């Protein structure tokens, strides 16, 4: 009779072990799959947003030989000396029409001419007017100029660039597509850098819309946010860490701050609407109100981060300072705060970054209005970068997709800058301590 096998050499044991090891591998693979899925989601998000983003920096323009004829413009007797007054009634549309008709001969009839002019952006004549104002010497001269094309032409040109034979579904007629091709054959159509996108305000026309106004609005809003939430947040953190007695009120305060940090942002918007607009009667759509609302939202973030930074300051620092005769306030202001400052600034940067990407509270206080002008002050009607993204994304006009991607690209770049600064600061701080 063979000797009985050891327990761990029995067939049953080996089978169980194989099963358990297989289970282990499966579990591990599940973990990897989860991480990969999260990574894939991020990659898809970024690629889909960023792949079109750069296109917003360019727009399709058409080169025309523009004849700044005073007669067509309706400007009487160009004076030889001094700056020429260009009246608002000057008919730049007629000038554009003439040059288009010269470039593409044989267009007859009012309807056809209207279709031809529709190739150009509605902002083309304003563009010409601005150019003539900047350079009055152009009056009476003939100049080859690039003027913006309509967003439909832009769509067509974009599609043709990747596949020359393609005809995307645009609102352009057969005739208009033919004219565009004729212009392109004369090398009069090109995608050119669109500086207006970075400096201009909003517009109903995608090719004329810019994020300049939204950028200034965001800047003004965040300045208010910073000016309110940083001092208040740091002061509250100092009080809670250094001076607050350990009693019920203090504990309630702490719980309150933690809860406030988890309140949905839209509720802060409702607060802003009811208190700042309703109770105090502040102006709607103003960066001042937006900034205050975001400041209340950011406050708990800054308090929590500052408390952590202050608590991390070695206790010996406080005792040494006290021992040398510093008062409690002096200990904090001269010794604890300077040492904790990098941590506090890091937390503040992260809080401001969060406020910068916030949209919902700003919708509540009316920063969603259609605003063409770049805001000049804290009480001007303004919009902010994320709100501008929302507005464009919601617009039925297809041309805005490029603008949205471009605006998102810039928003993400700004956020990256803020977060990068915070990370750098944290690293330097860690090296020192």
């Amino acid at each position, binding site marked *: 009779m063979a000797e009985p096998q050891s327990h761990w050499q029995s067939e049953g044991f080996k089978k169980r072990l194989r099963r358990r090891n297989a289970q282990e591998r499966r579990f591990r693979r599940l973990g990897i799959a*989860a991480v990969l899925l999260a990574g894939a989601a991020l990659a898809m998000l970024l690629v889909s947003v960023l792949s079109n983003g750069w296109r917003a920096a360019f727009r399709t323009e058409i080169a025309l030989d523009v004849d700044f004829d005073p007669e067509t413009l309706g400007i009487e007797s160009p004076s030889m000396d001094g700056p020429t007054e260009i009246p608002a009634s000057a008919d730049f549309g007629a000038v554009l029409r003439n040059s288009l008709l010269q470039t593409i001969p044989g267009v007859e009839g009012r309807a056809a001419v209207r279709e031809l002019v529709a190739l150009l952006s509605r902002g083309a004549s304003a563009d010409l007017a601005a150019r003539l104002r900047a350079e009055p010497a152009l009056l009476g001269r003939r100049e080859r100029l690039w003027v913006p094309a309509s967003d439909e032409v832009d769509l067509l040109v974009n599609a043709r660039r990747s596949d020359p034979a393609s005809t995307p579904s645009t609102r352009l007629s057969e005739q208009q597509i033919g004219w565009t091709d004729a212009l392109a054959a004369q090398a009069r159509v090109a995608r050119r850098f669109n500086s207006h996108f970075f400096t201009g305000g909003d517009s109903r026309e995608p090719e004329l819309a810019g994020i300049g106004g939204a950028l200034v609005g965001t800047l003004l809003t965040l300045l208010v946010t910073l000016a309110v939430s940083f001092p208040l947040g740091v002061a*509250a953190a100092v009080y809670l860490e250094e001076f607050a007695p350990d009693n019920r009120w203090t504990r309630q305060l702490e719980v309150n701050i933690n809860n406030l940090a988890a309140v949905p942002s839209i*509720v802060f918007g409702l607060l802003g609407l009811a*208190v700042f607009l309703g109770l105090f009667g502040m102006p709607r759509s103003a960066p001042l109100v937006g900034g205050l609302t975001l400041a209340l939202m950011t406050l708990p973030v800054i308090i929590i981060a500052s408390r952590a930074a202050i608590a991390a300051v070695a206790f010996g620092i406080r005792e040494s300072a006290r021992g*040398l005769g510093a008062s409690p306030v002096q200990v904090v202001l001269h010794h604890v705060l300077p040492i904790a400052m990098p941590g506090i600034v890091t937390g503040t940067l992260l809080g401001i970054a969060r406020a910068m990407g916030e949209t919902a509270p700003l919708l509540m206080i009316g920063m*969603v209005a259609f605003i063409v002008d770049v805001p000049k002050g804290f009480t001007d009607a303004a919009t902010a970068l994320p709100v501008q993204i929302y507005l464009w994304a919601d617009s039925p006009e297809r041309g805005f997709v490029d603008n949205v991607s471009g605006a998102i690209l810039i928003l993400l770049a700004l956020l990256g800058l803020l977060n990068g600064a915070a990370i750098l600061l944290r690293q330097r701080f860690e090296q020192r301590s």
Partner: protein
Amino acid sequence: MIGSSPETLPAARSLRAGSSVSVHRNRARRRTQRWVERGVRIALFAASTVAVLVTIGILGSLILETLRFFGLVPPSEFFFGLRWSPQIALRADQVGSSGAFGAVPLFTGTLLITAISLLVAGPIGLLAAIYTAFYASRRMRAVTKPTLELLAGVPTVVYGFFAALVVAPVIRSVGESLGLDVASESALAAGLVMGVMIIPIISSLSDDAITTIPKALRDASYALGATHSETIRQAILPAAMPGLVAAFLLAISRAIGETMIVVMAAGLAANLTPNPLEAVTTVTVQIVTLLTGDQEFDSAKTLAAFALGLTLFVVTLGLNVIALHVSRTAKLRYG
């Protein structure tokens, strides 16, 4: 400033000059110092009360407007009514001029989208946290952690754009090729993308919950011959359960209060349906819709937004308080 006061001068000189003048000056200085001291303390205390004032402001304004709303629409209709159509009447005799403020379709819509997002984020977030905590090499961790942090840093309006213009059309075309009828603003699209947004919340909070479990527990399990996965599933996860529950509760609270994704990707029609392929609306979407655009401050329409806001505030606050309580009991056990 005491540090630069004459007391730091050589002792002999201060003794010789111990005249009434310098004593007097010191006393005056100390008095101002005391005033400064007291003033700074009061200012610091005042700053700390702002947080409480904000809470009072939120509660006060929401409750006030909600009470006015309940003066126009009875609470029973708001909380239990099944029809939501808050149009304002242009003429008194118009059809449907009264408007209906039954918020149940909004609650179910919110729950549907939240449930979808948790189905996505729950497994992915938890497994990702387990993988990074137990399996990942240091190099792997250097990749996974920043990836998850990046997901957390993307503004919600960007997620909304992604949901509305990228995910929703894909779901629609896939659904159509399968012969399904998919709404262009389906709950599925909004829920999926919201799930991606929630992943980092669940993974970082679960990571905290898992890693605070004492190493002795893990070692004991290994010593008994358990594999990694057996240790995790049978020893670590049960021990970390309160922390994990708290993580999920906080994630639910975030999902309920999320606004931009649903505003951009979910619909406006208040459908009472469990079908994720249909369009549903949520509490936050309706708040935004009711309050943007032309508004008069006293109509039931605008006041309804505050009633919805109060509901949202109470629910999310409740979830946070429960989460805090649950995780505190966990700390008591192993802290």
